[in-house]
C-alpha cells in the first residue's frame, strides 16, 4: 500500500512552546490511523497543521505525493482532505440539509452569472447536490432531522452531521477530531459504525480519540503523542503494551 498522507519532521512552535515536535508518520490509503495522547499532547494542533488552519514552523506534509505544506484550508479541502473539529463545528442556525449543501459547494462551479440567469449548469449542479444530500442523509441516518437547524439537534446527531458535511465533498482522507467526544456510551457505537462504513467506501481516516477500547477495535495503526513528540507507533495491541505509552498515558493496558 502506498502512503496517502505523509508527514515529515512536522514542528509547530507557539512562542517558546513546542506544540508539535518533529513528528513523522504515514497513513496508507484505505486504512484507519488512530492518534492518541494526553491532553495538550498536540493532537489537535497536528490536525490544524495538516488541514492548513495554521502553518507549520518546520517540516513537510505530502498528500497523494503532493507537497501541501502551508496551503490554505480551502485548498487543502479541495485537494481531498476533509475534517471535523473537536468542538463540533456546524453552521448552527442553518438547517441540516443546508449544512450538507455547503459541504458540497467546493465541487460546484456556479457563480453570480449562473445564479442570476439560471443557467443549465446551475440547474444541473443544484440537482446533483440534492441527490448527494439525499445519499448522505441516508448514509448518516439524519433524514428525520433534515429540516431542523443544525444547532438544535442532539449532540450525537451533530457529530454524525459533522462527518456528513465532510463526506459531501467526496474526500480521500477524513480527519476526525474526537468524533465521540461528549457522547454517551450507547451512542458511541453508532458513530464507530459510521466510521467503519466510511472506511468501507475506500476513504482513509485519521481519528483522534480518548476512548482506548474504541481505538483498539477501529484503528489499523496508532500513533501516540506526548508533549508534541511521537513516543510510539504501530499496531494497537503493541502500542498499548508499550511501556512508554503506559507511563505517559494509560497507566495500564486496558484492552
Amino acid at each position, binding site marked *: 500500500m502506498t502512503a496517502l498522507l505523509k508527514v515529515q519532521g512536522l514542528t509547530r512552535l507557539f512562542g517558546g512552546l513546542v506544540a508539535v515536535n518533529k513528528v513523522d508518520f504515514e497513513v496508507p490509503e484505505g486504512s484507519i490511523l488512530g492518534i492518541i495522547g494526553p491532553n495538550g499532547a498536540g493532537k489537535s494542533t497536528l490536525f490544524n497543521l495538516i488541514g492548513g488552519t495554521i502553518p507549520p514552523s518546520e517540516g513537510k506534509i505530502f498528500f497523494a505525493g503532493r507537497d501541501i505544506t502551508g496551503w490554505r484550508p*480551502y485548498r487543502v*479541502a479541495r485537494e481531498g482532505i476533509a475534517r471535523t*473539529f473537536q468542538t463540533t463545528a456546524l*453552521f448552527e442556525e442553518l438547517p441540516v440539509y443546508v449544512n450538507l449543501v455547503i459541504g458540497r*459547494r467546493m465541487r460546484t462551479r456556479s457563480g453570480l452569472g449562473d445564479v442570476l440567469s439560471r443557467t443549465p449548469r446551475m440547474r444541473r*449542479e443544484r440537482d446533483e447536490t440534492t441527490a448527494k444530500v439525499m445519499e448522505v442523509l441516508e448514509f448518516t441516518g439524519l433524514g428525520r432531522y433534515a429540516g431542523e437547524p443544525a444547532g438544535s439537534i442532539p449532540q450525537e446527531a451533530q457529530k454524525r452531521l459533522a462527518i456528513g458535511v465532510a463526506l459531501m465533498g467526496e474526500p480521500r482522507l477524513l480527519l476526525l477530531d474526537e468524533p465521540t467526544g461528549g457522547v454517551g456510551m450507547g451512542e458511541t457505537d453508532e458513530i464507530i459504525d459510521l466510521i467503519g462504513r466510511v472506511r468501507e467506501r475506500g476513504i482513509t481516516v485519521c481519528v483522534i480519540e480518548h476512548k482506548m477500547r474504541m481505538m483498539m477495535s477501529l484503528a489499523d495503526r496508532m500513533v501516540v503523542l506526548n508533549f508534541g513528540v511521537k513516543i510510539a507507533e504501530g499496531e494497537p495491541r503493541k502500542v498499548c503494551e508499550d511501556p512508554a505509552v503506559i507511563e505517559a498515558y494509560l497507566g495500564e493496558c486496558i484492552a
Partner: protein
Amino acid sequence: MGKSGRYVKASALLILLGIAAALPWLLGKYQVRILTLAMAWTIATLSLNLILGYTGQASLAHGAFLGIGAYAFGIMVQRVGLNFWISLPLACVVTALLGLLVGLPSLRTKGPYFAIVTLCFNVIILKVFENWNWLSGGIQGQVVPRPAFLTQRWARYYFVLAFLLLTLVAMRLIVKSLLGVTLMSIRSNEDLAEAVGINSFRNKLLAFVISCFVVGLAGALLALENGQLDFTITNYLYSFYLLIYLLIGGVATLSGPVVGTIGLYFLLDYMKNIGIKGVEEFRYFLFGLILLLVIIFFPMGITGGVKRAWEWARGRFRKGEAGEVAG
C-alpha cells in the same frame, strides 16, 4: 412550505404589487415623492443586507458608496454629458470597482475591525468630497438633469419601483442559490466554511462588490429623484441609517429591508413635519428609543417578530386541533 402556502404568498405579493402600482394615483404629490425616495433608500438597505445580513460582514462604508454612485451618475450625466442609459449602469460599475479596491485590503480584517476600517473609509470620503470642490461642487453641489421621460413625478416613482423590484428579484436569486448558502456559511462559521473548501475571502469580496454595485444604483436613483446633489450624500451617518433600517426591519430577510426602510423613512419624515418647537432634534431621540425597543423585543427585526408571532399562533392552532382529536 406547502402548495397552499405558496399560493397564499403569491397572491399576497400580487396584491402588494397592485397597491404599489396604484399608489401614485391615491397619494398626494408630496407623499409620492417621499415614497420614491424611500424606495431608493430601500435598494441601499438591500445592498447592506447582502454583505451584513447574509455574509456577516458589517460594512459601515455604504454611505460613502451611496455618495460615490450618486456623484458618478451626476458627473457623467451633467458634466460629461453622457447618455442617461449609459450613465446609470456605468455609475454602478464605477461604484463596484471602487468597492473592489476598498474590499481587497479591508476584507482581510474581520468582525469589528472590518466595521472600523470601512467607517474610516467613509469618513475619508466625506472629507474628500467636502474639500475637493472641483469634484463635488462644494456646498452648492451640482444639478442632476433628468431625461424627458422622467420629468413627471409619477414616472420617476415607477422608474424607481421597477429598479426596486429588479433588486429584490436579483437578491432572491442570489440568496436562494448555491452562492447564497456559500455567503451564509461564511457568516455562520468562517473556519468551517474554509475547511469544507470555500475560499471565504473571494466570496466575501464578491458579496462586497455586488453590494457596492447595488448601493451605487441607489445613490444614482436618489440623485435623479432629488435633481441635485451635494457632498453631504457621502455622509457616514447614512451608513448608520442603513444599519438601523436593516436592524429594525429584519436582518437576512428580503422583506425586512423593505418594511424597515419605508416604515422608518415615513415615520422620520412625519416627525420632521409635526416637529416640536425648540426641540428640532427630538425625532432622533424617538428614533433611538424605537431602535432600543426593537432590539430588546424583536432581536430579528419587525419581520422576524411578525414571523415568530405567526408561527406561535399557528402552533397554538395546531395544538388546539390535536387536543380535540386526542380528547
